């Protein structure tokens, strides 16, 4: 009995450390840190339309809509991989507002890209300085955010979307 008491602090430390380690390693990929904006309100933004630079979109324009925001660029190879999937999402969910943001891209290059590969978005904004991306905490492309009708960010994905991710993670939040 005395021997067990002697080892009690060590046993306690080992148990607590094991629980901490399990908690820390749970579903955590260091390359994909969680978004600080998850479950927060959509940041205030004002973005110029890629096709008509006299037109501007702000938060109030997408109020009460379910919005899928996709940060892309013509120079981003993984963006090309997920691009066709946005046509499928739009087909399956016509009420979903698809909002593309050309991040750190030249207007002419973004236009060429969408003319060549098609434009699945309801609105395409251009963020050539990257400042809007900064407000969304964007640090790699592509990044996709789902906004609910209350204007809260309910989902964020870093990297190219796949059919599986759309089916398992995005669609349940849209329906």
């Amino acid at each position: 009995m005395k021997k067990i008491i002697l080892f009690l602090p060590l046993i306690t430390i080992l148990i607590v450390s094991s629980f901490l380690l399990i908690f820390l390693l749970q579903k955590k990929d260091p390359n994909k840190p969680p978004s600080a904006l998850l479950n927060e309100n959509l940041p205030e933004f004002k973005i110029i339309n890629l096709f008509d630079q006299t037109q501007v979109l702000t938060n109030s324009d997408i109020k009460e809509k379910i919005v899928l925001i996709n940060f892309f660029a013509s120079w981003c190879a993984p963006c090309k991989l997920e691009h066709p999937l946005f046509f499928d999402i739009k087909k399956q969910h016509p009420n979903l507002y698809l909002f593309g943001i050309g991040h750190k891209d030249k207007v002419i290059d973004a236009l060429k890209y969408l003319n060549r590969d098609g434009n699945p978005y309801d609105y395409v904004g251009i963020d050539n300085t990257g400042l809007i991306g900064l407000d969304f905490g964007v640090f790699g492309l592509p990044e996709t955010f789902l906004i609910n009708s209350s204007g809260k960010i309910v989902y964020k994905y870093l990297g190219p979307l796949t059919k599986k991710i759309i089916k398992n993670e995005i669609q349940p939040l849209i329906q």
Partner: protein
Amino acid sequence: MKFNLLFNKPSFLLVLSILFFTLLINNVNANIEDNLKKITLKLRCMTCQNQTIYDSEADFSLDIKKIVIQKLQNNETEKEIINFLIQRYGEYIVFEPQMNKQNIFLWFFPFVIMALSLVFLILRIKKN
């Protein structure tokens, strides 16, 4: 003649003010550079492998450096700048965990363990 021209009153004052402002600007720039280094050494480059923003030349790090310089020029404090970045990128962007409710266990657990061990040690010594 040249000497007189340079040191007549208006010219002398002009040269003096230019010199003063050059020194002032250099001093401000040096301060900004020092603060930039101090802040960016605490920040993690999110697109690199365990590198500080100060050491990194990645696009992301260059953007953050630009923002930090802009904010320093607007006289924002180190705390304000770091909070601005945490709000957008989360605590992952700083190497040192923040002192807040969520991290209180992380900060104080080693001290709790140390105190418990000390108590245990004292009791053992007393017993012996």
